[in-house]
């Protein structure tokens, strides 16, 4: 029965997510089935967790589960009707040639391997004590986190102020399984990896114009040790990998919208809306993407739809803060207030922070040669390619790094360097896929230049 429940939870979630994806992209004549499976997962987690939170404020228990399930089925039905009316067709992209088949097989094999291996590992420290704890307490209280939890100073270690995107996705499966099951709930995280990997392959292919390039970077992702096995990686069930996937999707569609008038901008809006709902740092990523979106919309003279697209993200962020205030949530003790005085007092931290950043990026046991590759990619984009895409991608990678580093100027930990050591590697995970996107864009460019160079060399000789 547990497995049937788990299946029911996943199906309703995917149905709701697919409905949202079809509604967001209505009017598209050809729908890539792999892309829509990934989007169904991303939007499904967002829809289910938001609905559980909003509806749970008014109705607990089985009625809550029933309402959210009906909403998911309804969204799926409406989305399907919209697709049928637009006579849109699902298509399955088939790899062409040996290289594409090989790389696509690698991506699929890696996803299967990670799904299998994640069943061998426990939830990590934060996965258990920051995220799953909320799902369990809500499950024990008819699907609603008890009000006393938010103000419970004895359990402040579990960060009651963290948003509920991940815990309430876990809660949805718990409600369907009829028990809080720490084994089956782990399956969520390899699915985020799978969605991220496939979206990276798709968006990388579209942006670079070469399918092999997208497939190659997607196949290389699990070769970053920290991404898979590190604290924050796929196995430990933290929110960092999901945040990385939402950021990749939002950024990828934003860049794709530069040259295509389709529904990419709506996808960007949908994916970026959920960033602050996944993790607190998602707000920083949302702000970065909002700034980049502003640039793109001004360039395309589409300011009004862009401003409207910011509203859902603003709504999620503001309503969560209001909710925390109403619940008298224990405030976070990690950072002090953002005051000029604190900034001035802690300016001497800048050099050690930069040093720690460089040391972390150069740590081969964590990242292998990934940051070296990403660095070359960004350098190439800025020096050789120099177009809007390259500026957007570079900003989307550098701005979060800079902003994350600035936050340590306001660290309240007794040792801010311990704070950096403990959290910086996880923060870097958020932009890993975005950096792979930059590499995917550069690969065909650099090969073309090389080929031209070789051709002219051979002609001259």
């Amino acid at each position, binding site marked *: 029965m547990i497995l049937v429940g788990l299946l029911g939870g996943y199906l309703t979630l995917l149905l709701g997510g697919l409905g949202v994806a079809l509604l967001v992209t209505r009017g598209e004549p050809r729908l890539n089935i792999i892309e829509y499976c990934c989007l169904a997962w991303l939007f499904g987690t967002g829809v289910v967790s938001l609905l559980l939170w909003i509806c749970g404020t008014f109705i607990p228990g089985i009625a809550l589960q029933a309402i959210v399930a009906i909403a998911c089925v309804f969204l799926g039905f409406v989305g399907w009707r919209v697709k049928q009316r637009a006579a849109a067709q699902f298509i399955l992209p088939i790899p062409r040639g040996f290289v594409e088949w090989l790389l696509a097989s690698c991506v699929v094999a890696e996803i299967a*391997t*990670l799904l*299998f*291996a994640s*069943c*061998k*590992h*426990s*939830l990590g*420290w934060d*996965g*258990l*004590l920051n995220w*799953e*704890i909320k799902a*369990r*307490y809500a499950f*024990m209280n008819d699907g609603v986190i*008890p009000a*006393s939890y938010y103000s*419970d*100073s*004895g*359990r402040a*270690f*579990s960060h009651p102020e963290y948003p509920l995107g991940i815990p309430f996705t876990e809660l949805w499966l718990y409600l369907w399984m009829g*028990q*809080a*099951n*720490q*084994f*089956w709930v782990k399956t969520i995280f390899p699915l985020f990896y799978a969605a991220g990997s496939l979206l990276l392959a798709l968006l990388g292919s579209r942006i670079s114009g070469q399918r092999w390039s997208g497939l190659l970077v997607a196949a290389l992702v*699990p*070769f970053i*040790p920290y991404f*898979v*096995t590190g604290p924050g990686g796929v*196995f430990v069930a933290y929110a960092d990998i999901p945040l990385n996937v939402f950021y990749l999707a939002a950024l990828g569609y934003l860049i794709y919208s530069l040259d295509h008038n389709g529904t990419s901008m709506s996808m960007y809006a949908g994916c970026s809306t959920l960033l602050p709902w996944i993790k607190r740092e998602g707000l920083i990523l949302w702000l970065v993407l909002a700034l980049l979106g502003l640039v793109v919309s001004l360039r395309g003279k589409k300011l009004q739809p862009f401003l409207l697209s910011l509203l859902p993200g603003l709504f999620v962020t503001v309503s969560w803060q209001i909710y925390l205030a109403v619940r008298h949530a224990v405030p976070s003790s990690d950072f002090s207030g953002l005051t000029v005085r604190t900034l001035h007092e802690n300016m001497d931290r800048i050099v050690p922070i930069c040093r720690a950043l460089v040391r972390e990026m150069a740590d081969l046991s964590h990242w292998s040669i990934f940051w070296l590759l990403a660095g070359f990619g960004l350098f190439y984009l800025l020096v050789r390619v120099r177009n809007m895409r390259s500026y957007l991608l570079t900003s989307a990678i550098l701005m979060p790094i800079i902003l994350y580093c600035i936050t340590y100027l306001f660290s309240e930990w007794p040792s801010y360097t311990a704070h950096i050591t403990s959290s910086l590697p996880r923060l870097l995970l958020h932009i890993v896929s975005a950096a792979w996107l930059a590499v995917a864009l550069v690969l065909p460019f650099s090969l073309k230049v090389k080929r031209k160079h070789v051709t002219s060399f051979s002609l001259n000789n």
Partner: protein
Amino acid sequence: MGRAVWENKVGPVEPNQSIDVYLRGLSGITHGSQTLSDAFEHLPQHKTLVIFVRQQNPQSEFLGMLIAYLSWPREVQIVNVRNATADHEVAAIKPSSVAGFVFCFMNPPPWLGRGIALGSGLVLVPVSASDVQP
């Protein structure tokens, strides 16, 4: 990634899989979630469980948090202790509102009486069975 694929076995497929693995590793308790929940059930309801952990000792702090996780919905108070014993910290607590003291990788003060060893490095002292005065 290769090591992560080969190491460990799949499962066990149990509701408290992760927390049980940690409790077994830290304290040697099998089916720790069930054992500890049963132990806390016998404590007076609506009273706080005070958990003492060693400062700068990640294992002790983590074990303390696991205890807090499991003792929901009971109120908990986690006390970080700098010294090897918690004499001052225990003496400072008003016993009337406390259901019991849990010591994670530290010994309870001798004058508190004998506690219940829940596992290696994990001692529960129910307040009703102790005279909380040095």
